[in-house]
């Protein structure tokens, strides 16, 4: 069974549509750029953005978020067991960009394996291993958002550890 948030599923559908046009097709701007409002953000250090509260998360169900701005889609995920780099009371909350760092296709979360799959060129990234590319075409592992949790359980993103697809500066 795979579960994706509504927006995440929509991205997947968009990705499939462009995917079906074939890799050779000139697709220019699709997926993220056509779905999401574009908004210029002044270049600066990473913003500290509230993504959600711990209470909002259901185990192993990705929650759609955006970081560092609304044009960069990601998911917040409570994995259900502690992982390196995880935050929260159980050390199991992580967040990733969901644009494949190979060609920018929107990733699909597979909750059975806890991996992200790319419908573009079949890449697989492990949500429990810092986004390690299990197999795939990207030349980097999946960008992960650095998280911090307030005493009230609010989850903030405060940085990114790889370059997000489609931008030459993580903060535009």
């Amino acid at each position, binding site marked *: 069974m*795979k579960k994706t948030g509504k927006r995440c599923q929509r991205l997947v559908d968009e990705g499939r549509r*462009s995917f*079906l*046009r*074939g*890799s*050779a*097709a*000139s*697709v*220019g701007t*699709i*997926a993220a*750029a056509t779905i*999401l409002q574009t*908004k210029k953000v002044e270049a600066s250090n*990473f913003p500290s953005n509230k993504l959600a509260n711990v209470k909002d998360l259901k185990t192993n169900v990705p929650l759609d978020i955006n970081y560092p701005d609304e*044009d*960069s889609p990601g998911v917040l995920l409570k994995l259900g067991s502690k992982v390196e780099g995880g935050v929260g009371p159980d050390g199991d909350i992580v967040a990733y960009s969901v644009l494949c*760092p190979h*060609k*920018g296709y*929107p990733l699909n979360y597979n909750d*059975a*394996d*806890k*991996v992200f*799959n*790319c419908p*573009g*060129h*079949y*890449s*697989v990234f492990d949500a429990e*291993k*810092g*986004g*390690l*590319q*299990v*197999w*795939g*075409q*990207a*030349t*980097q*592992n*999946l960008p992960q958002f650095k998280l911090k949790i307030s005493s009230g359980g609010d989850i903030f993103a405060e940085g*990114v*550890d*790889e*370059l997000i*697809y*489609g*931008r*030459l*500066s*993580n*903060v*535009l």
Partner: protein
Amino acid sequence: MAYKRNINKLPIIPKGAKKHNVVCNYCIVGCGYHAYTWNVGADGTTTNNIFGENLSVQQGADSDAWYSPSMWNIVKQNGKDVNIVIKPDKNCVVNSGLGSPRGARQGELNYSQSTSTQLQRLTDPLVYRYGQLQPTSWDDAIGLVADVTKAVIDDQGEDGLFVSAFDHGGAGGGYENTWGTGKLYLESMKIKNIRIHNRPAYNSEVHGTRDMGVGELNYCYEDTELADTIVSVGANSLETQTNAYLNHWVPNMRGTSMDKKKKQLPGEDHAPARMIFVDPRRTVTINSAEAEAGKENVMHLAINSGTDLALFNAWMTYIDSKGWVDKDFIKASTMDYDKMVKGNKTSLSEAAKITGLTTKQIQQSAEWIAKPKGNKRRRTCFVYEKGLIWGNDNYRTNCSLTNVAAATGNIGRPGGGCCRMGGHQEGYFRPADGFIWEGNPAKPPYVDKLLIEGKGGVHHVWACDHYKTTLNAHEFKRVYKKRTDIVKDAMNEVPHGDRKALVKAIMGAIKKGGLFSVDVDIIKADIAEAAHVILPAATSGEMNLTSMNGERRMRLTERYMDPPGQALPDCIIASKLGEAMGFSGYGWKTEEDAFMDGYHNGTGKIVTYDRLRAMGNNGVQEPVIDYKDGKLVGVKRLYADGKFDRHGKDHKKLIFKESKWRGLQAPGKEAQKKKFKYLINNGRANHVWQNAYLDRKNQFVTDRWPYPFIEMNPSDMKNIGVSEGDLVEVFNDDGSTQAMVCPTPTAKKKETFMLFAYPTGVVGNVVNDGVNEVIIPNYKQTWANIRKLANKPSGVNHVSFKSKEYKI
């Protein structure tokens, strides 16, 4: 944690950045790239850049205006630091902007003192002095090599000089460098004891098809977009010819090449491709094909390892019995068809028994290959690679597959072809080498075996690493170290600066069984541990380099940066050595001189650097037959006229070959299979290029694969008592090696698969020395036992062992 670069921003390519044509120098596919260079500090901006795009907003999927950190670096160009971005070329017909996980790292795989990448590159000639390898001048190093080589030839004749040399394209040679080395060893000298980078003799991996008259690269990639059926034998193309698969096979499976089919091939029925994979192992290629074409259009024929030939002969027998052959073609363009059919007769049930398939699977796959669609011939494209080439009975198996392709009229036709997929690009242009094969029966010397037996006095090694990429590697390394140590000990006895005394001491050591080893490479290969002289070479992009890809597409990679330190193109090193040894016809100043001396002069004087440069990343498909209207003119697919010439026969007929099943052919295999429990199948992974000579110093790769993986069925793991990531020893009577256990439920029980030629565990150590009649090794059919060495090392804790398969 997974390796992250923590790069949050890249310099933007400015308008006016220098743009160089680049063909990826790694695999056979040869994807087109461009290298953009510009002065450090002269970056473009979000609004003023080479793309003419507003980069202050998020770019969409497949954007041409994005590049990853792995594509960027700071390198030296004419002595100055410049930014470089090497990004895929959207207008190249080979890859249409796709980059593989190997080629899209070309930027960071360059030598950079600024960003500390690939500092392992050799910068200076080195000689063994004071008990270590020490930097020296070119004259000193070349002088020593020439003096010792001449002395050995004086003493033993030219058969005392052993050579291991690249003979391919891209980083594996190129027309300039194969000519330089070829002229030296095959023209100025006549060296018989010569071998190629991945096998122990000087031979083709596809003699079978060539003897039938069919060159192995006869199609164009577009044929895989046009085929009704694609038959893939022993090829894992999503991982090893990535963008040929993604850009040409996938559209056919998806149906997005239907318009092209209807337009180019009117008057016949068309449907998305059916796929037949012959491979004992389930691969990610098969997984992705099922996702694209639907499981109902994919047959995975998971044969017993090494039994391909029986399957092909059964196909041939069944197809002939149904009359699904191209009778007109057979009559007009071939010979010995009836003899072949009779000789190779194999029933469905016989083949089922040998291969482990069902008769229904064999029959259905034969129908997918040859049963006419309506009243038209089915167009089937046959491709094969190392599963066949490095598998059981290479020569005959190659013939059996080519028999089927030819009988069904699929050679030289759109949507057809019978081709190897390839490893490296090609770039062979050398003087005649027939003298190497003299003897009865004709076969080349088994060079590694001769070295192990103590033959030869001096060994020139050009970008080969026997320590990682040969068979019987355990024994080879043991003997090679011993023989080269004898010479090192003798060199230690000579006072400094006395060349005559040094050569005398070396020759004395050689007489005692020693071997003088010269290594020419871009990095210090593992075999260079034994070297007495190391010569630093430049690679593609540090020199202009021409090669051709798997559809014979020839292009020029333009020099975009300086070589490290004093490194030189191999052809220039060969030229220096030729001159130092007193031969004439060298003195090349540039790689272009070598190109003109060899390829240009030898192929009708049509192709020049300027003309190739003008053809850009789409180049021209060889053979180049003309230069017309400012363009080089090539040939889209070979044998369209039904004339076959690869065997060199005047009749130009395709010769069908009898190629009967004879079990495990290579000596020692049957006994090894009986004695040891596990099949150690082996091959590549998509993150890693070749033997990881650059990747071993690339953190993205070493983080993913700190040790070579061995895929094992979980029940086998239980029997041995190992968990994921544990280190195991793989051992048999020929040697031992190590690997990291990767649980793989899709693996058949007792059939493992290990990453080939990896520095931290060399599978060649357990491959026995058995070869075929033309000295082609059999790496794939290897059996060994497995025992636990250690629990998962701490350097493996971050590694994921989840399924590599894409799940919809």
